[in-house]
Every structure is written in C-alpha cells, then in structure tokens.
C-alpha cells in the first residue's frame, strides 16, 4: 500500500493541530516523524490511522480515497509509548489476539506467532504473562502483535520512550532489520534526533503542526531547508550566530571580522544567521582557515571519551562537543574554532542560503 496525505489540516475548536501537511509514504518505507512534544506527531498518526478525520484535505491509500474511513476498516497497527498488552493473556495469546479476531487459521497463527517471536527474541517467553517480563520485552510483545497483524500501515508513537537507555539502544538497532522484513509502511514518531538518525529511512520534521521538510534522514540532517528544521534536527541544540556579510568579509557578533570562506563565501552580502552543530565547534585550532570566536566556559560536561563544553561567545550560548576529557573551569577564557565549511547559512527569513559542504576526505 502507498499512503498519500494531500494538504491535510486538522482543527480542533479554535486551534489548528495540523496545518497543510502533504506526505507520500511508499510501500515498505520507514518514515520517521521528528518533532518536539506537541509538534503534532501523534495527531498526524491518528489522522493516518483513521482515528480522526481531517478538517481539510484528503488521505489516499493506493490511490483510493480513504479520508472518512474509520480505523476498523483500514488495516492499521499501532504501538504506543505505554506498553499496552492484555495482562491476563500469555505473550503468545497477546501476539495472536488480532489474528484470532480476524479469524486466521490456527496453523497460520502458530506459524506467524513463532516467526514474530523469533524476530523479536521472544521465543523463550511465549508462555509467560506480560507483567512477568521486563519493560523491553513487554514492548517487544506489543511490537510483535503489531507485526503479526500484517497491517499495511504500522504506526509507532515514541515506542521506546519508556524504556531504559540501553534497551532503547538495543531495540533501535534491531528495528530497521525488523521493519525491512515485513514490507509494511512504518511510521515512527520520536522527539530525539539521534533516534531518527539511528533508524535511517526517511524523516519528516514537524514543528507547530507543519511538516517543515521531508527526505532521506541523513539529507534532512545535513541539508535542512530552514532554520527550524535544523533546530528540530539537532541534539545538542543547534548553535547559532547572527552575522553580517559585506564585501567578502563577515562581521561576527563577538565583534571580530573574518574573511568569508566556506559556505559563507557562496552567499550574497547581507545579514545571516549561521548554524552549526556541536561537533563542528572545536576548542583547538583547526588545520583549515577557521572562524575564531573568543568565549568563556560556562559548564563542561564529560561523557567519558568526549566533553560537551558550554561556552558563552558574546550574547550567544554555544555547545562544543570535543574529543577527550576537557576539565575546564567555568569562567576560563577559550577560543572556539568553527570550520566555515560546516556552517549552515540562513537568511533573514530563516530559509537556508547555503549548507554544509562535504569535507575533503
């Protein structure tokens, strides 16, 4: 099945929850909806599922208009943030339940449950009750049930948010493999950029009910269309600086002036916002011509092999992700270095004027 949303808008009372969203989700695709809490991810999924009808626009499945069709008449499966299973049924029966409702033959149920259990590493627990399992296993049970249904559309609303960090990591790694084995359309909502990147596939970034960009995940990450998309798709938060370009030189908010190189060389004179991710800000001189920013350290956070150093450069709070353990006292004066090839340049309206040039290998 191919699912197409045409200019879908959802209003509830005076509020617009989804505005003018158009998306095409091809068969067998993995689609990530990335956005902060309240960006409209859940509402969009409910519209896709048919749990809600759009106020405007159409939803097409394989070219057929399914706009008003309720969820029962569509072949949809959903996995939620909470682990939702039938507590009194065994894991086996939990996975089998939608097939029993659909009247699938006993032998077929057995085969599909075993297949899904193998895929999700649940085979040893099939006889247990969900509450006797760990959170990760409970959520695997819910996912197995969704997969067994052979739904055309599988919607997952932050399915890993309630799991321990390590379990999350494990399932994240497995999910793309599991998705690829089924051929359904997967839609996966998350607030975490790292999760989107780990899952791959295609990403649609959402902000205040609008889809700001859609494309292959790494492309949206590296080549955001606008400042909002870049912000939504950055963790740590995107570093930004307001700069003024005139006559081949760039004035920085910290007062200094540098030669316009890298991405800044490619744009006409004017006022811009440059955005760059934490790992593109260095605290040691770079082997290329780099923009130097005088700054003071505000907090240094050490993660083991790397350090997040929060620095204040002029009015801006920036975060640098640097290799190694950097124990920097707050108030220490440092120079931060920015490779101008990695600066995303946004015009006054927040549209991208130039993006990340591929670094020389």
């Amino acid at each position, binding site marked *: 099945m191919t699912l197409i949303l045409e200019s879908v808008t959802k209003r509830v009372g005076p509020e*617009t929850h989804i505005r003018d969203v158009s998306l095409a989700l091809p068969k067998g695709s993995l689609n990530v909806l990335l956005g902060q809490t*309240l960006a409209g991810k859940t*509402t969009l999924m409910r519209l896709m599922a048919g749990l809600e009808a759009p106020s*405007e626009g159409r939803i097409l499945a394989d070219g057929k208009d399914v706009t008003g069709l309720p969820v029962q008449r569509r072949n949809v499966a959903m996995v939620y943030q909470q682990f939702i299973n039938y507590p009194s049924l065994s894991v086996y029966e939990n996975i089998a339940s939608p097939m029993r409702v659909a009247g699938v033959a006993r032998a077929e149920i057995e085969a599909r449950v075993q297949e899904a259990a193998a895929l999700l590493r649940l085979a040893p627990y099939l006889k247990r009750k969900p509450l006797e399992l760990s959170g990760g296993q409970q959520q695997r049970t819910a996912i197995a049930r969704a997969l067994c249904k052979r739904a055309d559309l599988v919607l997952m609303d932050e399915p890993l948010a309630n799991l321990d960090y390590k379990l999350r990591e494990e399932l994240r790694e497995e999910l793309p493999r599991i998705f690829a084995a089924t051929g359904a359309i997967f839609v996966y909502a998350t607030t975490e950029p790292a999760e989107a990147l780990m899952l791959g596939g295609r990403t649609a970034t959402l902000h*205040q009910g609008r889809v700001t960009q859609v494309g292959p995940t790494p492309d949206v990450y590296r080549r955001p269309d606008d400042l909002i998309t870049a912000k939504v798709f950055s963790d740590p938060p995107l570093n930004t600086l307001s700069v003024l370009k005139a006559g081949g030189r760039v004035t920085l908010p910290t007062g200094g002036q540098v030669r316009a190189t890298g991405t800044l060389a490619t744009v006409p004179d004017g006022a811009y916002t440059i955005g760059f991710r934490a790992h593109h800000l260095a605290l040691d001189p770079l082997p290329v011509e780099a923009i130097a920013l005088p700054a003071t350290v505000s907090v240094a956070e050490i993660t083991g092999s790397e350090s997040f150093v929060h620095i204040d450069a002029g009015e801006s709070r920036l975060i640098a992700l640097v290799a190694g353990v950097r124990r920097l006292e707050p108030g220490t004066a440092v120079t931060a270095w920015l490779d101008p090839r990695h600066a995303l340049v946004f015009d*006054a309206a*927040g549209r991208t004027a130039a993006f990340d040039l591929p670094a020389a290998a």
Partner: protein
Amino acid sequence: MTKTVNQKAWLLVLPVFAVVAFSAVLPLMTVVNYSVQDTFGNNQFFWNGLGWFQELLDPTSQFGERFFDSLWRNLLFSAIILAIEVPLGIAVALSMPREGRSVAFCLVLMALPLLIPWNVVGTIWQVFARSDIGLLGSFLNRIGIDYNYAGSALAAWVTIVTMDVWHWTSLVALLCYAGLKSIPDAYYQAARIDGASQWAIFRTIQLPKMRRVLLIAVLLRFMDSFMIYTEPFVLTGGGPGNATTFLSIDLVKLALGQFDLGRAAAMSLVYNLIILSVCWVFYTVMTNVDAGNRTVLTESDPADAAAAAGSLPQATTIPLDRRAA
C-alpha cells in the same frame, strides 16, 4: 471539503431513541398536556392555560404556599445532608487504608449500604427507630431522651437525615477514595520533605486532587436528595403533619391522593425544570474546572518563537494533556 461522513452510526442509536421516546418524551407530553387543563374526573378536561403555573408560583395562594413549603423543606434537607455527608465522606476516605489486604474489606463494607434497595432502607430504619420495639428508639427512650419520630417533627428529621447519612456517605467516601488513590506517592514524599503538616498536605495536595470527584459527589448527592421519595415515604409518610413532606412526596399526594392532575402536572414540570437547571449549573462548573486544569504552553524558547515568527504563522497551541503523566 470532501469528507465522507459515515451515517450508519445513527442506526445504532435508534433503539435508544425509541426507548427514550416511549419512556420519557411521550409521558412528558402527557404531563404538559395535563398541566394546562383542569379535570373533574370522567375523563373530562377543561382548558386552564397557564393558570396552574401562576397559582403554583404565587406564594400567597394556598397551592403556591404548599409548593414553596415543600421546596424549602427539600432544599434544607439537601443542604443538611450535603453538609454532613461531604466532610464525613472525605474523613472516611482519608482514614481508609491505601494498600494491603484491608483495602478490599473496607471497600466491600462501604459498598454494603449502597446495595440495599431504598424501600428496604426505609423499612430497616422504621423498625430500628421505633420507640416501642426498635433497638435505637427504645434505647433512646430508656436513657431518658423523649424520642418518637412519628410524633415529633425534630425526631422525624433527625431520623431521616441519619438514615440518609448512613445510606449514602459511603458513596461520597468511595468517590473521594478513588480521587485520593490517583495521587502519586511522589506528592506525599515531596510534602514530607517540605515539612508539611497533615493539614497542609490535605489542603495543598489531597483537596485539590479531589476537587473533581467532590463535584461529582456533590452533584449526585444533591440530585438524589432533592428527588428523595422512597425512604421518607416508608419511614414517616411525610409526617408528622407535613414535617417531612418533600417535593416528591407532595407531588404524589397531590396527584394520586387528591387526583388533582392539573396542579400535579404543573408542579412536576417546575420540579423538573429546577433539577435540569441545577444540573446545567453543575455541568458548567465542572467543565470549567477541567478547562482550568489544562496546561497551556506558555514558555517557549524565545529564539524559537522569533524564528517561527519569520517564516510561520504564529503559535499553534495544542492541548498539553499528552505531556502530563
């Protein structure tokens, strides 16, 4: 808009419409019909217009006086039982165990009075409070308190109020208990850390969290007590004199005792309107409380807002209920 709305759902509601039509709408129409006519039996009716209503709402007329007496009596009764049952219910709910085996025991015990049919409740108390053979009545008389609910208005009121409190306090308590159970442990821990006294915990955590269920409890108990009929009818039959003649009892006396159908119909319509308007008031208050509890997204990153202003129509606010846990 190309939305195709599924109309079949109406079919499912049809039986309800049919039942409601036969059980409520048709009888109500009959009542409306009666309320504008006078009858002297033999199925003969005479047009009376709004005469009954004018008489009913005029306290100086005999009929109006009787109506307002019953109405005040009824309101007083509701006020008294609310004033007793709500604080008592809260107190009971607060003293119930929050976990362990005794929870189930308490819940069953509390539910018992609610399971007894109303006329049985009336009969139980009628016997219990009799001054000759009743356990309570004879005991009170023996210790020197002159108690006879059939003879003294005060005794009748005390008995009816006590009976209602006995019968219905557990409903308030159970509702409050449900409200209390929904408070996460972290709140109590935080309050202990903050050095809050029991009273402060009640005022700042428990009461606000119980507000919703309390409103429901008050609504239910008000409606029920305002429409009370069976128990006082069984116990006192509205007496002594008219001391416990509440609206519903008066209505039955008028309609079935005196067969004054026109007056009774007018009275029951007004009675109905009072109940509906009280319901509406409660409903409005309750939905407003809900709206007040909704979190509103107010603090967004100023930088984001500025950026958004550049390229987007400003701020869509989406209800935050999903954020909470």
